[in-house]
C-alpha cells in the first residue's frame, strides 16, 4: 500500500499539502492539487481505514425501522437475526444499532416510530418498507446527509443508498412452476392473499398468475386472510374454501402464514392430496415441511437481507466506500431434504 509520504515525495511537496488535498481542506494551488490527484490515481493510493477510524473516535448509530417481530407469524425474527449478527461483528468497529419497531397494520404507528428514529440523529437508516405510501412520504423527509437502505422490498424512485431483497414477481413465477410439477394433471389452485395488503405479496401473486396465464387446465382462485382477526380465521377460511370450491388440488400461500393452512390440511389428513407451496422458513413452517404437509418453501435469505443491510450502511458511513445499489438475493427452493442448511 502506498503512503502519503510516497505521494509527497513524487509530487515534490510537503505531507501537509497532500493531507489537505486528501481531506478537501485548506488552500492548495489548483495545479498542485491536480498533480497530487494524478499521482494518487497512478500509484493506486488507498487511505488507511484503521488509522482514519482510530482518529475519529466516533460511534456510528444506525436505526432500523421494521415491523414488530411477533407479526406475520414471527417472520421478522429472521431478518432480525441477520441484523443482530452484523451488529455483533461490528461492535468492535464502533457501530451501534437502534431498533424502532412498528405495528405493520398501523400507519400512524409507523409515522410515530419513524419520527422517533429521525429525532435521535442516526448516521444511517435501514428500513423494511411494508407500508408503501407512509414510507415513501417519510423517506422524502430524511435529510440528504442521512443515508437509508431498504430491505425486504423497495420503493422505486426514492434516493435510497441500497436495496437488499428479492424479485417478488419472479419468485411467484418460480412457485408456479413448482406447483405445476406437483399438480401435473391440472385443477383448482387456491391462492391466499392477506389483509391488509402488502404490495410485495401482491407482486408474488402476479408472478404466479402470469405463469399459468392461458393454461385452461388450471383454475386459480384468490382468497383473503385478514391477519387482524384471531388465529381461527385461517381455519374458517379453509372450511369455506373447501365447501365452496370443488377440485382444490393446491394451495399457494405467498406470505409467512403457511403453517396455519398446513395445520388445517394436516388435521384433516389431506396432506399429499392437497399440494402446498409457501414462503419463508419460519419455525412453524419448518415443522410442516418436515412432516410432508408443505411440499416447497420459497425463501429469500431473510437473514442475509438484514445482515447485508447493516453492512451496506457500515461500508458507506464508516469505510467511505460505495456499496452495491441493488442486491437481489437468490430465490431459494427448499424441501425437507435441504431445509437444515438454510
Amino acid at each position, binding site marked *: *500500500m502506498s503512503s502519503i509520504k510516497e505521494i509527497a515525495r513524487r509530487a515534490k511537496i510537503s505531507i501537509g499539502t497532500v493531507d489537505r488535498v486528501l481531506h478537501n481542506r485548506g488552500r492548495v494551488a489548483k495545479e498542485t492539487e491536480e498533480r497530487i490527484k494524478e499521482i494518487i490515481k497512478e500509484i493506486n493510493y*488507498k*487511505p*488507511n*481505514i*484503521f*488509522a482514519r*477510524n*482510530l482518529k475519529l473516535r466516533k460511534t456510528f448509530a444506525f436505526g432500523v425501522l421494521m415491523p414488530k417481530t411477533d407479526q406475520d407469524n414471527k417472520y421478522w425474527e429472521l431478518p432480525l437475526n441477520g441484523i443482530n449478527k452484523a451488529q455483533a*461483528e461490528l*461492535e*468492535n*468497529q464502533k457501530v451501534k444499532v437502534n431498533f424502532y419497531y412498528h405495528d405493520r397494520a398501523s400507519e400512524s404507528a409507523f409515522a410515530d416510530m419513524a419520527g422517533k428514529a429521525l429525532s435521535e440523529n442516526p448516521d444511517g437508516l435501514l428500513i423494511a418498507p411494508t407500508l408503501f405510501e407512509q414510507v415513501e412520504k417519510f423517506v422524502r423527509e430524511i435529510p440528504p446527509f442521512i443515508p437509508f437502505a431498504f430491505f425486504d422490498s423497495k420503493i422505486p424512485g426514492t434516493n435510497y443508498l441500497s436495496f437488499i431483497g428479492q*424479485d417478488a414477481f*419472479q*419468485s411467484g*413465477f*418460480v412457485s408456479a*412452476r*413448482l406447483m405445476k*410439477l*406437483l399438480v*401435473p394433471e391440472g385443477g383448482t389452485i387456491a391462492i391466499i392473499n392477506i389483509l391488509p395488503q402488502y404490495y410485495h405479496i401482491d407482486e408474488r401473486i402476479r408472478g404466479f398468475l402470469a405463469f399459468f396465464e392461458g393454461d385452461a387446465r388450471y383454475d386459480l382462485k384468490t382468497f383473503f386472510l385478514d391477519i387482524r382477526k384471531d388465529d381461527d380465521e385461517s381455519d374458517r377460511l379453509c372450511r369455506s374454501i373447501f365447501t365452496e370450491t370443488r377440485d382444490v388440488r393446491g394451495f399457494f400461500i405467498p406470505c409467512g402464514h403457511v403453517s396455519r393452512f398446513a395445520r388445517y390440511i394436516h388435521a384433516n389428513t389431506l396432506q399429499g392430496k392437497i399440494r402446498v407451496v409457501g414462503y419463508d422458513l419460519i419455525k412453524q413452517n419448518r415443522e410442516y415441511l418436515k412432516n410432508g404437509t408443505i411440499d416447497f418453501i420459497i425463501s429469500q435469505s431473510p437473514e442475509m437481507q438484514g445482515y447485508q443491510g447493516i453492512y451496506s450502511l457500515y461500508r458507506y458511513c464508516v*469505510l467511505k*466506500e460505495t456499496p452495491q445499489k441493488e442486491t*437481489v*438475493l*437468490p*430465490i*431459494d*427452493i*427448499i*424441501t425437507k*431434504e*435441504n431445509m437444515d*442448511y*438454510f
Partner: protein
Amino acid sequence: MPSIVEIAKKARTSIFTVHRVIHKIPGVKKATEERVKKAIKELGYTPNIFARNLKRGKPYIFGVVMPFPWQDTKFWESPEQAIQKAQKELENHKVKIRFFFYDRTSEDAFAEIKSQILNERLDGLLIAPVLIEQVRKLLAELPRGLPVVFFDSKIPDVHYLSSHCQDSYRGGLLSANLMKLLLPRGGAIAVINIIPRYAHIEKRIEGFSSFFRNDPAYTVKIFYLHSKNQDVESSQLTESILHQHSDVKGFFIAGGPCARFAEYLSANKLLDTIRIIGYDLTPENKLFLRKGAFDFIIGQSVDRQAYEGIYTLYKHCVLKEPVKKEIVVPIDIIIRENVDYYL
C-alpha cells in the same frame, strides 16, 4: 465500550498493569491479574481493532490453493471469481491474496506448486484439496500454527481452522426426491458416475440410490464415464444406454460434464420423454438449463464456500475473532426460473 483507564480504575491498579494482563506480558501478581480479568469481564472490554491493526505495517497474505479455473468444465471459475470479489472488498483492510493453481489431474506437477507455497511468507491458506495425498504432504511441511481453511472438500484427520463444504449424501437424497416428482409413475433411471472416482460424486450417488432402494416402481442403473475424452465418450455412453435400456425415463448426472448428456438428449429430441437432473452451475450447465434441457440443477455454491473461506481467514487473522470450524453450505435447487439469481 470501556477504555483501559476504566478497567484500571475498577481493578484498582495502573493502566500499565492492565496492559500487561491484556497482552500476556509476565510480571503481574496472580491476585491483581484476577482482579483485572474480572473487571474486563464485567465492563465488557473488547480490544480496539483499529488501533491494533494500525501498528501492523505489512499486509496479511492469504494463499489460495485450488485447481486451474478452467478445469472440470470450468467448475473452478466461479470460486476464483468469488475470491477476487472478497479480495477487492478486503483490499483496504490489509489483506492480499496469492493464487497457487494446480493441475488437478497431475500428482507430479503439485510438487512444484508445493515448493512455491513453502517459499512464500503467508498468514493463512485456503485450500480445495482435490489431490488429497499431495495436499496432505503440503500440510505436513507448513509452519506450525499456520491457519488452514478448506473449501469444496476437506481432509478430516488433519489439523485445520475451518472447513466450508457440502453434504453430498443429502444432495443425492434431494435429487432423488425431485426425480420422483418428475417421474410420478416410476421407471428406470440412469445414474452417471465418473472415472476416476471422486468422493463427492460417489456420496451423491449413494444418497440417490438409497432413496429408491425400497421402491419397486423405480430401478436405478449406474453407468460409468471415463474422463479421458469426456466429450466424445459421454455421447457414446448416452447412445448405448438408450439403446440397451429403452425403458430409461430419467438421467441423474452426479457431476462432471453434465451438459454433454443434456446436449445429446436435446439434440435427439428426447426431452419430452426423458427427465434430467444435473449437478453444479457451470457456465455450460446454465446454458442448457436456460434452454430447458435440464429439469433441475443441484448447486452447492462452491463460490460461496470460497468467498466465505477468505472471510474466515480474515476474521481469524485480522479481527482475531473466533470462527466456526465446520460450515456446511446449503444445497441449492435451481430451475430455469431462478437460475439468474445464482452466480
